[in-house]
């Protein structure tokens, strides 16, 4: 509850603060302050299991260790994004404090989506999260690519909202007993589903797959991630996607958990398709930004394994995956922004010019691939263990491992360009690489390695 209140209030503060901030660099510090406040308040709530202010929300949101840990991870990743890319957000356009305000509103949506207890709050959370993102995607107003990305994202997002609402209406109509929107109330049994519930389930599934950009509803993602300003791509591809998964896992665990046998095969097929399409398309990309967009689809395929398995391991794994994937991707995007040329050739010879950047980029790429000793390895391991423990579709586990092997190809192509190719200047002189930036990158890389050795420092919080 603390996080929702603080992010919403701070969003409004930042929005009106835009009138008063004369210097362009001021909003960044305000945003960082607000985010630190939100993190502290949220950790307090996690430890005490009680919010500062008691708000009667009629049980429409529920807060437990799982949600609160996820929110903490997400807020910390956003803080890292602000610290690494604060100056890049200032360079997107003139309305700096509005961008920060919109990011705060997205964070408010993320907290609602992570804690929803009724379909009403799910819908509101998804909308609060999406609408500011449409604006952020189109924030580079003169750039046609940004316009196109915003329009595409908006149309696809609104379309999936329509499908979501239709699914909710069918679930409501089909639910036996006292009808209500509470997800535990919808809880359907193991037996054969009524037709209306089945339609509702499929429509909700499609809407959620749209939101997390899983195949066959992934086609908007590469274009949108490519067109949006790179800072906001970094935010969208990590934090927002993870929030989509938390909503997905929450909805399916509480509402449809008992009927898992009936939809599990569907999810298995979708997971396999997402892994295959994401990885194979990423292989052929020349631009690193677009490659990362496809790789985010591939990583979404791995995260779908959590929804497929839906057990304790999956829940621990999804938080670990969120942390591992967000840290690595935010770090990699932060380096990418500093490059002159976004193609893979643009990375040629980075090791000679910026050895530290080259090293940290390598750690991030190794983590995304899932090499042991990095957080990405542990995250993938948790997902695979969850799927094996489930024990119904073992072919999916083998398939996922094979796809992870494919992913090594395109991630290592970047590492190869960094270390084994000679070329001229790579880092853009306009984007100065400050010592603070380097220190932050090293901290991020260290975090990834620490999480890779001791994954329990995150997962223990779930049982706090």
């Amino acid at each position: 509850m603390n996080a929702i209140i603080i992010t919403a209030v701070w969003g409004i503060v930042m929005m009106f603060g835009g009138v008063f901030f004369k210097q362009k660099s001021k909003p960044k510090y305000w945003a960082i302050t607000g985010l630190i406040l939100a993190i502290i308040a949220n950790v307090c709530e996690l430890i005490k299991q009680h919010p500062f202010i008691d708000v009667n929300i009629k049980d429409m949101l529920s807060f437990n260790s799982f949600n609160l840990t996820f929110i903490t991870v997400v807020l910390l990743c956003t803080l890292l994004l602000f610290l690494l890319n604060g100056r890049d957000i200032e360079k997107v356009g003139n309305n700096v404090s509005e961008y920060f305000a919109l990011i705060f509103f997205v964070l408010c949506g993320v907290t609602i989506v992570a804690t929803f207890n009724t379909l009403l709050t799910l819908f509101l959370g998804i909308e609060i999260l999406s609408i500011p993102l449409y604006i952020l995607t189109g924030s580079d107003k003169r750039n046609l690519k940004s316009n196109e990305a915003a329009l595409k994202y908006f149309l696809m997002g609104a379309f999936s909202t329509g499908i979501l609402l239709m699914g909710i209406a069918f679930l409501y109509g089909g639910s036996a007993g006292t009808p209500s929107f509470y997800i535990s109330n919808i809880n359907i049994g193991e037996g054969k589903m009524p037709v209306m519930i089945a339609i509702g389930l499929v429509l909700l599934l499609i809407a959620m797959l749209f939101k997390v950009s899983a195949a066959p509803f992934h086609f908007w993602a590469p274009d949108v991630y490519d067109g949006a300003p790179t800072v906001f791509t970094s935010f969208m591809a990590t934090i927002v996607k993870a929030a989509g998964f938390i909503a997905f896992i929450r909805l399916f665990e509480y509402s449809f958990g008992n009927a898992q046998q009936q939809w599990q095969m569907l999810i298995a097929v979708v997971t396999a398709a997402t892994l295959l399409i994401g990885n194979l398309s990423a292989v052929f990309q020349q631009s690193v930004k677009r490659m990362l967009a496809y790789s985010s689809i591939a990583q979404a395929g791995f995260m779908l394994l959590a929804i497929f398995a839906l057990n304790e391991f999956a829940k621990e794994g999804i938080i670990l995956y969120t942390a591992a994937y967000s840290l690595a991707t935010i770090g990699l995007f932060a380096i990418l922004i500093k490059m002159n040329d976004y193609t893979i050739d643009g990375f040629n010879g980075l090791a000679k010019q910026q050895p530290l950047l080259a090293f940290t980029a390598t750690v991030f790429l190794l983590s995304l691939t899932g090499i042991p000793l990095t957080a990405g390895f542990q995250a993938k391991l948790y997902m695979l263990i969850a799927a094996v423990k489930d024990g119904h579709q073992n072919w999916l586990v083998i398939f996922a491992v094979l796809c992870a092997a494919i992913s090594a190809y395109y991630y290592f192509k970047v590492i190869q360009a960094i270390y084994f190719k000679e070329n001229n200047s790579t880092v853009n002189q306009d984007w100065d690489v400050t010592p603070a930036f380097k220190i932050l990158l090293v901290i991020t890389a260290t975090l990834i390695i620490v999480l890779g050795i001791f994954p329990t420092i995150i997962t223990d919080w779930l049982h706090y």
Partner: protein
Amino acid sequence: MPINYYIFLALALFTIGVIGVLTRRNAIIIFMCIELMLNAANLLLVAFSKLHTATSNIATAGSDAQIFVFFIMIVAAAEVSVGLAIIVMMYRNTHSVDVNFLNRLKN
């Protein structure tokens, strides 16, 4: 009047909306079709609300769906304001609202 009529009407509206989104090329018309989908959901929710009120002996049964409809209307209005702004922004740059124009990112 049986509930089936309302379900079929809502499904018909929803299908028209989906087909419109998938086939039309004008951004504004796609947008109108999306609104049609939202309104089909609204209609269905209200119909189910009425059904639950009629069949249940609790006086307030089904009222939550009507409140949900208000939320949908408000959110749709918020979405329209952002969406139209995006379409206007695109029109300023390209002097067209044709989504076929938008294939620059592909290559």
